[in-house]
């Protein structure tokens, strides 16, 4: 009897062993041509891009690699997930009032970590990065080994930063704290977050100053762009508002455009009036292009960068190359 039990046991072990080593599919993740601490910049669509293009910017978003080409950390807001608030007559929902002011002012998810596959190929409503036209900013070859340690330190800082996305940071960038929890009314935008990662790691990079005559045009362009997005259902929060607007004649699209302009310029996210007109202040903030060297001509034909060899470790711009992820079989 014992003999048979032994045979059965051996058979069972062999069965498990053979199934365990019969081969399997393995996923090799996507990566890009950057190292820990490099800045990844990308172009895109939407009203932020329209706003920045008024400044000659080509890029609309950026983030920082927190390892050698596999994982990126960046500050973003899912604009199409901001709830719409409505007016009520008694308990009956009537007309759209505005976007939720708190969520507009303090954008979520804020600073997040994504693998390259998710950042470039994830949920289409959330993807902020595009390969076409994308680039990686890194030290020049001659200074790579000298600077890499500093960039690693900046990447370690951004890894621990937690904050909201703040559209108002496009006017005043200095509102991010070196903490790992959300603080209402504090945070930054994408390039401001990258700037602060370097700043908290000991490297204050240059900052752009945009005079009033240009910010006024930017605000006007932003307003027009949002109106068009709402009416043409291209912005993610458009059609429902417009349908109601057409029925009740409430001017919901103009209110929301005003609200966004007021939030950008003054963080007045509860204000749906045209308060911003004629009042937009000068801006002290970096767009993604401002992380570039002042000698670099971006694909929009502009020398928009404000960095110099002394203000920044990032002297080289490489076209982005994605090494696609793939499945492979191992025996």
């Amino acid at each position, binding site marked *: 009897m014992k003999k048979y039990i032994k045979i059965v046991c051996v058979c069972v072990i062999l069965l498990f062993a053979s199934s365990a080593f019969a081969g*399997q*599919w*393995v996923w*090799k*993740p996507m990566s890009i*041509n950057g190292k820990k601490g490099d800045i990844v910049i990308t*172009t895109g*669509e939407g009203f932020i891009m*329209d706003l920045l293009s*008024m400044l*000659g910017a080509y890029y609309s978003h950026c983030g920082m690699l927190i390892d050698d080409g596999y994982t990126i950390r960046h500050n973003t807001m899912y604009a199409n997930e901001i709830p719409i608030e409505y007016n009520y007559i008694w308990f009956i929902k009537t007309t759209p009032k505005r976007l939720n002011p*708190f969520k507009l002012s303090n954008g979520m998810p804020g600073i997040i970590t994504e693998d390259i596959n998710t950042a*470039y190929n994830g949920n289409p409503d959330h*993807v902020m*990065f595009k*390969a*076409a*036209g994308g680039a990686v900013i890194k030290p020049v070859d001659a200074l790579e080994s000298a600077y890499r340690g500093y960039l690693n330190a900046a990447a370690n800082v951004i890894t621990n930063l937690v904050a909201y996305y703040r559209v108002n940071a496009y006017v005043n960038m*200095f*509102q991010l*704290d*070196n*903490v790992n929890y959300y*603080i*209402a*009314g504090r945070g930054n935008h994408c390039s401001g977050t990258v700037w602060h990662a370097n700043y908290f790691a000991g490297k204050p990079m*240059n*900052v*752009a100053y*945009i005079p009033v*005559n*240009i910010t006024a045009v930017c605000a*006007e*362009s932003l307003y*027009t*762009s949002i109106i068009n997005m709402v*009416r*043409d*259902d291209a912005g993610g929060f458009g059609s429902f508002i417009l349908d109601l607007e057409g029925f009740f004649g409430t001017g919901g699209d103009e209110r929301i455009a005003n609200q966004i302009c007021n939030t950008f310029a003054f963080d*007045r996210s*509860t204000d749906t009036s045209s308060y911003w007109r004629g009042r937009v202040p000068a801006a002290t903030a970096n767009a993604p292009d401002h992380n570039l060297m*002042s000698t670099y*001509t*971006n*694909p*929009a*034909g502009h*020398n928009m960068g*404000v960095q*110099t060899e002394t203000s920044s470790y990032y002297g080289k*711009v490489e076209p*982005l190359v*994605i090494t696609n*992820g*793939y*499945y*492979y*079989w*191992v*025996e």
Partner: protein
Amino acid sequence: MIFKKYKTAIVIIGACVIALGIILYIKKPQNGSKTAAEINDSGYINLFQFMSFSDEVKKQEEIDVSKFAAYEMEEANMIKRVILEKNPVCANEDVLVTVVAANPHGSDANLMYRISNKPGNPAILRFRRAGPREFFVVVRDNANHIDFRKVPIAVQECERQTYVILRASLSNLKQDVVEFEVTEQKGLTGKCEYSWNFGDGLYSTTQTGSISHSYARREQTQFQTTFTVSVAVTDAEKKHGIGRATVSLPNLHYISSVMGNPTVPMIYEQFPELKNSIYELPVAMKNIYDEDITFQTADIEYKPCDSSGMTETRRIDAGVLLANTVLPRRGTVDTILSFDKSQLPPFTCNLSIRLSGRMRGVTEVVANMHISIPPSGRDSVDEGRDAVVKDDEMINKLNRAAEILGRDRPITPDDIRRLEKEGKL
């Protein structure tokens, strides 16, 4: 007596107070933190943010703006005319907008355009809803001059039999690739045929309303190149409609050369094919310059499958790697890149190749390539990053894809998508 009566309630309240105290203590900013002073006031708002919202101006860090570099732009009169193909225009109808501009501060070739939300000139715009509308046209030079104009346009509802809406978007995953999709078509019934004109002299016909196209072989003589693309859709009853879109691509290699670092566009697939212990990969090299180029050296980084391992670097003659190393001016050379498997360091999964050469024997020119070699065995798996596929549905798809494509080659998400579209998975 009272304590005994309300003992449970007092204990619960006491526990809550202690818990709140602990939370507040944990949330307190660390001493010495650079911004502790600012966040002392606001640091606890987060706990109650679900029921609070303040519109007050928050305390900001003081900053001396004058110590930072200023980026000043000047308005200049550059836009001469904005030509609308038609005005008024129907809702959902394509309208071609062309800007006529002149650069008083330099060459007109240096002007850059943005029409509404489209980079480039001309641009196809489309308005979905009727009413008086307006959009911005922005023209900039490559210095600090900018000009803009707000353009009014009347959009009206029309009784139209057919229309086609074409959307063009830059690929998320590939440089120089544009994805086109017919997002809406009205008045066309049954099975349709789609005839594509990509605007670069190339054409295609499909049975579905989506296609991707690579513009990697385009000439690069300016900062951006704009293409006008059209699709003619014909249904079973021979009714047809046309959709148009413009797409503008940045010429990164040209820009790189303007910056003093000329680079050569290389067109190739990610995976080489293994034939008799030799890896081979077809490569197209596009010389976008007015001088002949000869590649002389190749610096190769051999990256191990285990991403935490050490990279090995070698320099070899470019001729050892490429069958053809000479690129005539403005020409495209199709050649084969090959290397011996036995000469790879063990467990190599990625090769970064940097080809270096000269134009007219003087100016240095480079070309970069990134090639993947899938792991060949269990000992090549990157334990830290690679993930074993455990989803049964995915495993079945991969097995079916491997039957069609072969098990020796890697399977990409693109392969899966393509086979799914073809109904083979």
